[in-house]
């Protein structure tokens, strides 16, 4: 393909803060990369994009994926290029992943650490590959930003690095996994790789394109029209592909899939992709309705609770002395079901052992923290998918969805799943649902696993790195930073700022019953930061010397409410009263379109017994045997909702935005896009 055709597409911006709009072909010659500011209107016919007029955050809006896009390497929306390259290069160590798991682990967490090591290894190789590429692409930092969407199409990647190194000589046909034949100017080695990789890659790509097309969905009518058009075009392309091998003519600006034409698997993919695209795009209204989350289970609805109980595999006993206000939330007696479940470990058929293990870790509290829980869950699912076999006379799509559903309900019984986990589950389910029917079982499994891998690395780990990059600019010498509890993102920010040699002090505010702040405090001290430690009641005492408040979040709801560890609202309120900026650090995958005004309608209840005995204070035992006192209840809330007016800024992987922009991100970028 001639460079001229591709030229408008590779609108690349030398300043990392501005995001490119449009997408990039791998072979984009470097000199083109300097070709002026991004111009959304010039993006290719297929893609164009909502004008990136969001001045608040540097945001790049990826275009819908096209069939041709399998061939093209995609720019990820979230990442500024230099950062990306760097973080990827640095990511090989795998330490980034370990950040999500608190240092002191009980023996039961072994599993998670083994996960992390395994994961780290996988990640390492993943990052290494990218790292190489990033280095090569340095001469044009832009290319570095235009990363493959899936981290697994090695071939494409190699190609890019080769192309980039060659100074644009590789501007020819991008490699595609869809065909080994059509790859023109690639080395043999790459062909080898490609072959090895082909099984997984094609499925990924097929799916990618469908999601890509879906991304446009929440847009306005124009977008819908475009989507329709696209799908028609895709259908046409598919038909063409079936009919004749090469539609490589690619007259239109959107490179036809046909370029990559040839063997049978590809034809399948194209066809399926086309049909899927239709499914995804055409009935957005219906889709949307369907996507409205089901009402949450209300536990004061007796009949439904009974029904749920019969299904449940965790035998939970209702706690006594319930707090009247929270009847609608589940509260169980803790401590009794763990040994019971442990004993059942080996004869529990329906739940995969890894999932089971993770469930037990949730139950025992060994894994906590939104990111850690989400990663553990996804990895368990990955394991489970790996070991999954489609039972005879069933289809993978349906059966696996049901399977995942049962795992989720098991995990939910162990501990109510968080919003971020819910988002990840929805991502996974949508991925399963979009698997082409024709794809073979092993391919489907590989593609799902790589999807999960990618979700973890891009939506969580890389998102954190971007957040760190952004937030660190808000730390100045001499600052006194206050943080509450233990947030992995905040911890990374503090450590990174310290590495950069900034001089600041950290105030760690903690609260009972979990005292997670002590974990953070220990890790900060080990790295040599100057810390102060206090409890939440003293927050107004300490606040007058604080210059910034950094908070983590479990979720950010679309009315700007920050749903986070209980106490966050208090800290934010006091900071607001003292006119101290409150900066909330939250990855975009935790955003949710739900709204919430108080902390009562939806929350999680922890073990009330923890309230009664104060750790390390044997003298405080007035509440021993509280359960036998008729009028006494103990309430252990887990989350609270911080009103958006207490929040000065939310740092997310899309940039730094005010809380009022959260619905914009949720809406404009669409759930599909936010979650991948």
């Amino acid at each position, binding site marked *: 393909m001639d460079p001229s055709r591709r030229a408008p597409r590779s609108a690349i911006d030398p300043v990392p803060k501005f995001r490119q709009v449009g997408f990039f072909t791998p072979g984009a010659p470097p000199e083109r990369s300097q070709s002026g500011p991004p111009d959304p209107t010039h993006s290719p016919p297929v893609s164009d994009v909502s004008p990136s007029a969001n001045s608040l955050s540097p945001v790049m809006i990826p275009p819908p994926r096209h069939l041709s896009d399998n061939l093209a390497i995609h720019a990820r929306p979230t990442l500024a290029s230099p950062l990306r390259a760097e973080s990827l290069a640095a990511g090989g160590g795998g330490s980034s992943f370990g950040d999500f798991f608190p240092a002191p682990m009980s023996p039961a967490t072994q599993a998670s650490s083994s996960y992390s090591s395994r994961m780290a290894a996988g990640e390492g190789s993943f990052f290494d590959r990218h790292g190489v590429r990033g280095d090569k692409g340095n001469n044009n930092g832009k290319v570095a930003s235009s990363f493959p969407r899936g981290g697994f199409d090695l071939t494409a990647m190699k190609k890019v690095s080769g192309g980039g190194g060659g100074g644009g000589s590789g501007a020819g046909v991008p490699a595609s996994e869809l065909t080994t034949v059509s790859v023109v100017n690639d080395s043999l080695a790459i062909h080898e790789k490609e072959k090895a990789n082909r099984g997984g890659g094609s499925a990924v790509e097929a799916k990618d394109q469908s999601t890509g097309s879906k991304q446009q969905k929440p847009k306005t009518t124009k977008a819908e029209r475009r989507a329709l058009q696209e799908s028609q075009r895709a259908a046409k392309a598919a038909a063409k592909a079936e009919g004749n091998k090469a539609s490589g003519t690619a007259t239109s600006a959107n490179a036809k899939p046909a370029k990559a034409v040839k063997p049978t698997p590809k034809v399948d993919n194209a066809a399926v992709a086309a049909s899927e695209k239709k499914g995804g795009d055409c009935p957005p209204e219906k889709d949307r309705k369907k996507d409205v989350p089901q009402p949450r289970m209300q536990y004061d609805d007796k009949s439904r609770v009974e029904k749920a109980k019969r299904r449940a595999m965790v035998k939970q006993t209702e706690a006594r002395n319930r*707090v*009247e*206000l929270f009847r609608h939330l589940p509260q169980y007696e803790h401590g009794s079901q763990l040994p019971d479940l442990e004993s059942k470990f080996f004869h529990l058929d329906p739940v995969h052992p890894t999932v089971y293990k993770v469930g037990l870790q949730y139950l025992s509290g060994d894994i906590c923290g939104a990111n850690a829980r989400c990663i553990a869950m996804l990895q368990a699912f990955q394991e489970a998918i790996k070991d999954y076999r489609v039972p005879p006379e069933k289809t993978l799509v349906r059966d696996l969805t049901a399977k995942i559903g049962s795992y989720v309900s098991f995990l939910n019984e162990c501990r109510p799943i968080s919003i971020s986990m819910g988002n990840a589950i929805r991502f996974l389910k949508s991925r399963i649902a979009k698997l082409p029917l024709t794809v073979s079982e092993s391919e489907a499994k590989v593609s799902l696993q790589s999807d999960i891998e990618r979700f973890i690395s891009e939506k969580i780990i890389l998102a954190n790195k971007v957040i760190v990059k952004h937030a660190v600019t808000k730390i100045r010498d001499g600052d006194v930073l206050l943080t509450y509890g233990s947030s992995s993102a905040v911890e990374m920010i503090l450590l990174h700022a310290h590495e950069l040699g900034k001089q600041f002090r950290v*105030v760690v505010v*903690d*609260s*009972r019953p979990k005292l997670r702040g*002590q974990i953070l*405090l*220990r890790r*900060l*001290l*080990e*790295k*040599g*930061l*100057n*810390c*102060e*430690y*206090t*409890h*939440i*009641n*003293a*927050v*107004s*005492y*300490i606040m*007058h010397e604080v210059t910034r408040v950094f908070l983590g979040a479990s979720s950010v709801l679309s009315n700007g409410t920050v749903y986070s560890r*209980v*106490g966050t*609202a*208090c800290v934010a*309120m*006091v900071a607001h*009263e003292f006119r101290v900026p409150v900066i909330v650090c939250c990855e975009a995958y935790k955003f949710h379109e739900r709204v919430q005004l*108080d*902390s*009562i309608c939806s*929350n999680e209840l922890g073990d009330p017994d923890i*309230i*009664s005995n*104060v750790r*390390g*204070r044997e003298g*405080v035992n*007035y*509440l021993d045997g*509280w359960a036998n*006192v*008729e*009028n*006494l*209840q*103990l*309430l252990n*809330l887990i989350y*609270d*909702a911080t009103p958006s007016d207490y929040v000065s800024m939310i740092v997310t992987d899309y940039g730094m935005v005010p809380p009022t922009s959260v619905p914009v991100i949720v809406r404009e970028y669409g759930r599909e896009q936010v979650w991948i």
Partner: protein
Amino acid sequence: MPDVQALVNDFVNQLKKRKIEGSQATAKQTAELLRSVISQQRVPHTNQAAALINAVRAVGEQLIAANPVELAVGNIVRRTLHIIREEDLSLATAAMAGLGLSVASDDEDDMERSDHPVLSAAAVAAAARSTLRPPSLQTLLEDMPDSAAVPHTSSSGGDSEGKSRSVDKGSRGRKLKHDVIEAVNELIQDISTCYEQIAEQAVEHIHQNEVILTLGSSKTVLEFLCAAKDKKRSFKVFVAEGAPRYQGHLLAKDLAARGLQTTVITDSAVFAMISRVNMVIVGAHAVMANGGVIAPVGLNMVALAAQRHAVPFVILAGSHKLCPLYPHNPEVLLNELRSPSELLDFGEFSDCMDSASGAGSLHIVNPTFDYVPPKLVSLFITDTGGHNPSYMYRLIADYYSADDLVVKGRPTTGS
């Protein structure tokens, strides 16, 4: 008076070691100590009041220095000084009256008052306050005749158990001391009964099915809530535990034992729960003259949350907690940092701090008190009734004389 000195030293030591918990106990013990100081003090024939004042002031100075953040000590010292001044004044006017200024004693007030033992002007004033008599124009007008009339009645009527032979110049010294001690006794009585007087007002403030939030533990709050419960009100109480002392657990246990629906929450859940709360009722450590409150740590947070949700924030405070001082930089000056061991065990983090490079330092901040500015307080309930924060300065002026604001001999800050 060596024994008095020993008593004083003992008390000073206790104050220094923070052995005395709670401002009520401190106030009571201070008053008792001052009473014995007064009773032991020899009074010269001339200028007895000055002698007493000096003695009390000398002791008071030591006591205040022993625990400057325990404002109740200073309050009681000032009130004792105020009592001495008032008694002296009343005796002086009585003496003048006795010298021949015959006063018409045909006030109707006089008749009404003669049925109970009339002690002194201060006692009368206190009685007037405790009967919640509003400062009407009539009382203002009658103020002068009253103070003159009282000793007159007692001397002429002879029905006051012979304690006021005020006309007798020889016994006047003993008379002053005696009156002062009586008034101090009254004060002690007031301090120990302030609970009941505050609790009496509970039904006026708590309605059926109310949801009340409190933090930490305060005997006043306990009595207040229980009084409402005894009057057959049924309501719910959320108790925030009040880290790091967790007195809330104790309060919750007591409340539950008395049959109130009680829920213990963590301090961090205050913001989450306050939207469902009708009223916040808490105790205070001291009430400053501007209406600001020195309160157990965490209450500023609660008050802010209450303000956010327009929940009334009510402070219960006995009159011994009213402090005539104004807070300046209250977070720092009127506070006290307690032992870190309440937050972290000894040596818990020593392993990650002893790096020779000196990098990584850890400070534990464990303050005892919070300052709640007057704008966050909806109402004060004292033993004399409910008051606005903006009225506190006037209430306080009733109890203290302006000369005593600075207790120290040198004109530096009083506490």
